[in-house]
C-alpha cells in the first residue's frame, strides 16, 4: 500500500463505519487501564463495565441498523458493509453479552485473574465482527487469527486445571493445522489468480472480487478449485463439520463453561457467516463443485454428530456433539441457499434460535456445575426440577428448543431450514436431517428426563459418597437473563414476525 493511499484512508471518514469494532477495542484496552488505576476492592465492577460496553455498542448498532452502506467497500476493499454483516454484528454482540453474564457466574468460583478474560472477550468480539464483513483474504485471515488466538487463551483459561490446559493445547495444535490448511488454500488462490492490472489499478488474488472474476472466467482451473476447497476446509474447522469436528468434544469439555458457550455459539456462527460470504461471493462460480461437497459434509456431519452424541453422559460433550449435528442442519441451509435465496436468512434465523436456546442451557449448566465444571454428568441433574424448579423449567425449554419440539423457537428454525431444503429439492439431505432429528430427540429428552423424572436408586451401603451440593440459586440478574431467554424462545415459537421479517426480506 503506498503512502498516498494510507493518507487518503486516514483523511476519509470511513473510520466511522467501523465504530462498533473500534469502540470495543478501546473498551478492551480501557478495562486493562481500569484494573491498573482502581483499587483492588473495586475490581469486581470491571465485568460490569465490559457488559456495559457490549450493551452500549449493541444498542448503537441496533439504532443505526437502517444505515447500511450496502455493498460499499472501505479501506481499499478490505471491508465490505452489507446487510448480513450488520446481522452478524448484532448476533456477535448479543452472544458476547450473554457470555459476559455466564462469566460473572462461573469465574468467581475459580482462582483465576478475571479482568483479562473480559479484555479477550471484547477483542475477540471485535475480530468476529470484522471477520463477518471482510472482503479481502488478508483481512479475512488476520481477523480469523485474532479470533483463534484469543480462543487459545480463553480455552486454557483455568490454567491450574489439567483438563483446561489439555483442551487449550489440543485447540492450539488443531487450530494451527487448520489455519495452515486455510492459508495454503489462500496461497493457491493467490497463485492461480496472480496479478491483474485493469485501468491502472493492480488487483491480486487476495481480493474477493478479483477471485470471483477469475473463477467466473476460468471455471475449470484446478489450482483455484483446490484452493477454494482448502479454504472451505479451514472454515469447516470453525463450524465443526465432518471430518474437522474431531476436536469438538475434548475442547468443549475442558474449556470453562462461558468459553464453551462462546465457542458453541459465536465461533460456529462466525464459520457460517464466512461460509455464506464466500459461497455467495468469491466462490459463487464454483457452485457445481461446492454443492456436492457441502451436501456430503452436511450429511456426514448430521449422522456423525447425532450418533456420537447418543451415548454421551457428560453434558459439555453432549452439547458439543449435538452442536456438530446443528452445524449439519445449518449446512443444509447453506446448500439450499444456492438455489433458494432466502435460505441464507433461514440459516441466520436458525442461528438466533440456537443462540437463545444454547445460552439458556449453558446458563443452567453454569449453575448446576460445581467448582469443577468439566466433569458435569447427566446424573448431576437428578432432582434439579424439584430443588430448583426455575432452572429445571429453563433447561426443559432450552433443551426442547434445541431438539426442535413445537411450539418452541427451535422448531420454527428447523422448519424454515427444511422448507428451504424442500424448495431446493434436497430430498436426500432432508431425509438424513429428519432421521438425525429423531435421534437427537432421544438424547435431548434423556437430559430432560434426568432433570424432571426421578429414578430411585438404592442407597449405596458403606460407600457413602458425599451428597452433591444443591445447585446454586441464580440471583436476580441470572433469573432475569434466563427468564428472558426462555421467554424469547417460547415467544419466537408462536410469533416469528419480528425476527423473520428482518432476516427474510420478501
Amino acid at each position, binding site marked *: 500500500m503506498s503512502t498516498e493511499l494510507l493518507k487518503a484512508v486516514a483523511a476519509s471518514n470511513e473510520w466511522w463505519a467501523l465504530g462498533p469494532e473500534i469502540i470495543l477495542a478501546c473498551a478492551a484496552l480501557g478495562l486493562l487501564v481500569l484494573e491498573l488505576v482502581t483499587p483492588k476492592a473495586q475490581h469486581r465492577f470491571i465485568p460490569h463495565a465490559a457488559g456495559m460496553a457490549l450493551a452500549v455498542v449493541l444498542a448503537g448498532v441496533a439504532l443505526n441498523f437502517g444505515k447500511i452502506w450496502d455493498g460499499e467497500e472501505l479501506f481499499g476493499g478490505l471491508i465490505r458493509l452489507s446487510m448480513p454483516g450488520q446481522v452478524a454484528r448484532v448476533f456477535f454482540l448479543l452472544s458476547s453479552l450473554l457470555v459476559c453474564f455466564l462469566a460473572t457466574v462461573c469465574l468467581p468460583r475459580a482462582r483465576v485473574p478475571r479482568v483479562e478474560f473480559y479484555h479477550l472477550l471484547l477483542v475477540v468480539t471485535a475480530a468476529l465482527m470484522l471477520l463477518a464483513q471482510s472482503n479481502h483474504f488478508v483481512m479475512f485471515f488476520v481477523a480469523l487469527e485474532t479470533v483463534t488466538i484469543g480462543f487459545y487463551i480463553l480455552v486454557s483459561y483455568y490454567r491450574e486445571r489439567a483438563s483446561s490446559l489439555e483442551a487449550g493445547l489440543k485447540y492450539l495444535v488443531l487450530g494451527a493445522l487448520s489455519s495452515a490448511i486455510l492459508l495454503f488454500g489462500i496461497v493457491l488462490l493467490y497463485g492461480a489468480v496472480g496479478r491483474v492490472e485493469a485501468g491502472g489499478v493492480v488487483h491480486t488474488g487476495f481480493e474477493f472480487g478479483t477471485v470471483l472474476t477469475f473463477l467466473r472466467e476460468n471455471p475449470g482451473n484446478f489450482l483455484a478449485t483446490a484452493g477454494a476447497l482448502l479454504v472451505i476446509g479451514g472454515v469447516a474447522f470453525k463450524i465443526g463439520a465432518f471430518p474437522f469436528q474431531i476436536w469438538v468434544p475434548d475442547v468443549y469439555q475442558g474449556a470453562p463453561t462461558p468459553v464453551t458457550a462462546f465457542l458453541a455459539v459465536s465461533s460456529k456462527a462466525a464459520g457460517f457467516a464466512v461460509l455464506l460470504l464466500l459461497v455467495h461471493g468469491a466462490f459463487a462460480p464454483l457452485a457445481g463443485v461446492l454443492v456436492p*461437497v457441502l451436501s456430503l459434509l452436511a450429511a456426514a456431519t448430521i449422522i*456423525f454428530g447425532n450418533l456420537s452424541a447418543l451415548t454421551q453422559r457428560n453434558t459439555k460433550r453432549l452439547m458439543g456433539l449435538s452442536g456438530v449435528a446443528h452445524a449439519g442442519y445449518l449446512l443444509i441451509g447453506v446448500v439450499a441457499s444456492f438455489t433458494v435465496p432466502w435460505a441464507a436468512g433461514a440459516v441466520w434465523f436458525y442461528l438466533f434460535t440456537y443462540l437463545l436456546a444454547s445460552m439458556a442451557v449453558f446458563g443452567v449448566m453454569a449453575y448446576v456445575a460445581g467448582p469443577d465444571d468439566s466433569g458435569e454428568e447427566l446424573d448431576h441433574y437428578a432432582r434439579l426440577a424439584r430443588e430448583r424448579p426455575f432452572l429445571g423449567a429453563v433447561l426443559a425449554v432450552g433443551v426442547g428448543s434445541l431438539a426442535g419440539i413445537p411450539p418452541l423457537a427451535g422448531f420454527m428454525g428447523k422448519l424454515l431450514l427444511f422448507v428451504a431444503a424442500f424448495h431446493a429439492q434436497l430430498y436426500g439431505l432432508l431425509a438424513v436431517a429428519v432421521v438425525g432429528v429423531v435421534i437427537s430427540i432421544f438424547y435431548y429428552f434423556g437430559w430432560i428426563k434426568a432433570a424432571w423424572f426421578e429414578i430411585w436408586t438404592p442407597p449405596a451401603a458403606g460407600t457413602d459418597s458425599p451428597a452433591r451440593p444443591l445447585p446454586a440459586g441464580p440471583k436476580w440478574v441470572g433469573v432475569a437473563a434466563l427468564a428472558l431467554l426462555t421467554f424469547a424462545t417460547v415467544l419466537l415459537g408462536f410469533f416469528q414476525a419480528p425476527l423473520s421479517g428482518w432476516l427474510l426480506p420478501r
Partner: protein
Amino acid sequence: MTALNHAILALLLPLASAVVIALFLRQRGAVASWLSTGVAGAIAALSIHLLLGGERFESSVEWLRFGAFSVSLGVKYDDLAALMLFIVGFVGFLIHLFSLGYMHDDKARARFFGGLSIFMFSMIGIVLADNLFMIFIFWELVGFSSWLLINHYHEKQSAADASKKAFIVNRVGDFGFLLGIIMCYWANGTVNFTELGQDHVFSTAIPLLLFCGAMGKSAQMPLQVWLPDAMEGPTPVSALIHAATMVAAGIFMLCRINVLMVPQALEVIMWIGTITALYAALCAIVQRDIKKVLAYSTLSQLGYMVAAFGLGSIAVEHGGHQMLLAAGVGAAMFHLTTHAFFKALMFLGSGSVIHGCHHEQDIFKMGGLMKKMPVTFTTFTIGVLAIIGMPAFAGFFSKDAILYLAMTKNTAVFAILAFTAVLTSFYMVRLWKITFLGEARSDAAKHAHESGLVMTLPLVILAALSIFGGTWFFHSGIYPKLAGTVALLIPEAHGSAHTTILLVSLAVMTVGGGAALLFYKSAATDTLEEKFRFGFSVLTGLKESFDRVYNYYVAKVQQRFAMVLNFLEQIVLAGAIIRGLAGFAGLVGYGARALYTGSLHAYVYWFLLGAVLLWAYAAGIF
C-alpha cells in the same frame, strides 16, 4: 357494544369463569360457586337481551388454512340459535342457582361449578357455531364436560364406570359424525351452514352419518345405553346436561343441517326416533329409582323429537297456494323447548326430594311427601301434568303438534306415538303417586323436609314456564320475537283434525294416567311386579338386553381383537422396530464415540485425511 360482541361475550364468559376456577379457586368452593352462578346469570341476561333485541347476524373469521382447505370460526345467530341460546342460558342459570343449595355441602364444589362453566361454554359454542367443524369441536367439549360431571362422585365405582360408558358410547356416534363432516366437505367443498343452504349435493349417506352424532349425543337407539347410567352424576347435572340441554343438542344439530336432508334419510331418522320413544317408555315402567324413571322418560321424549324431525315437511295452504312447511323442525324445536322446561323442573324436583330424603332415591322408600314438601310437590305435579299433556300446560301443545304431524304423514308412527303417550302418562302418574301420596315408608321419608328458597325458587320459575311455555308460542305478543321463524314452522291442526287430535290426546292421557292411579298402591313393593310377574320380567329384560349384548360384544369380540393388536404392538412395533432400531443406533453411537480417543496424534490424522479428501475431490479423482 354490538349484538355480535354480546354473543361472543356470552360464549367467552363461562370459559373465563372455568379458567379462573381451575387456576385460582380450586380450594374455595363458595367463591367458585358464586362466580359460576353469576356468569350463568349474565349469560341468561345476554341471551334474553339478544333474543328480544331482534337482531340476527352471521360473522366469521378464518382460523387455519392449509392450501385450499380452511377452517373458520364463526357465529351464526339466527332464530334457531336465538331460541336455543335462550333455553341454555335461562335453564342453565336456574340450575346453577339450584346447585348453590343442592351442592352446598359437597367437598369438591369448585370442581363441580368449574365443570358447569366449561359445559356452558361448550354448549353455547354448539349453539352459535356457523359450521360443522366448529360444532364438532364444541361437540367433543360437551362430551368432555359431561364426562367430568357424571364422574363427580368419582370415588364411587358406578359413577366412574358410568362416565366412561357415556364417553365411549358417544365416541361411537361421533365417529360417524366426523365421517359425515368429512364427506360433507368432500362433496360440497364447505361445511358452513349458510353456504350449504345455498347449494349442496343430494346424498343419503351424509345426513345419515351426521345423524350418528345426534344418535350418540341424544341417546337414540342403539346408542341409548349411556343415558340411564349417566344419572350417577349429581342431580343438577342430570337436569342441565342429561335432560334439558346437551342431549337436546342432537336435535338442534339435526335442525341446523335440515337443508341436507333427503326423504330416505328422514325415513330412517323417523323410525329410530319412534322406536326409541316406545322402547324407553316401556323401560320406564319398571324403574324404582326416581332419577332412572326420569332418565327413561327423557329418552322417550327425545325419541319424540327425533321422530318429529324425521316426519319432515308438510304441505300447507298459505294465501291460496300450496307450500312446503318444514314442520318437522318446528315441532321438534317446540317440543325441545317445552321439554327443557318441564323435564328440568322434574329433575330439580327429584333433586329436591333426594335432598330432602337424605339421598334416598328409591321411590318405594318414599311416599307421603305431599305434606312435607309442599312446594316441591306442587311444582312437580305441574311438571307431571305438562309431560302427560294436560290441556293448557306446555307439553300439551308441543305433543299435539307432533301427533298431528304424525297423523298427516304416517299412520303407523302415529299409532306408536299415541301408545307411547299412554305409557308416558302411566309411568309418570305411577312415579308421582308412589313418591308423594300415601304414607311415608322409610325413616328418610318420615324426616323429609322442604328445601331452602334457593332451591325452590328455580322450581317455581320452571313451573310457571311449564304452564305458560306452550301458549307463548301461539297466543302471545312475545312469540314472534321469541322464536320468530321457528314458531311459524310449528304444525297446527285446524277444523276436524284439530278435534281428532284433541280427543286422542285427552284419551291417551286419561287412559294412561287413570290406569296408573287405580292400579298402583302406595306400598313398599311394585304392584306390577306382584301381580304380573311375567310382564314385569319381560320389561326388565328389555331394559337389560342392550347392555347384555354390548357386554358380550366387548368381552368376546373387541377384547380379543385388542389382545391381538396388543401382542402385535408389543412384539413387532415396540419390540422389533422401535427397540431394534434404537439398539442399532446405540451400537453405532458407541462405535462413533470410540473414535474420540482423546489422542492428539489421531486427531491430526483426521485433519490430514479431510484435507486430502478435499484435494482429491478438487482433482476430480472421485
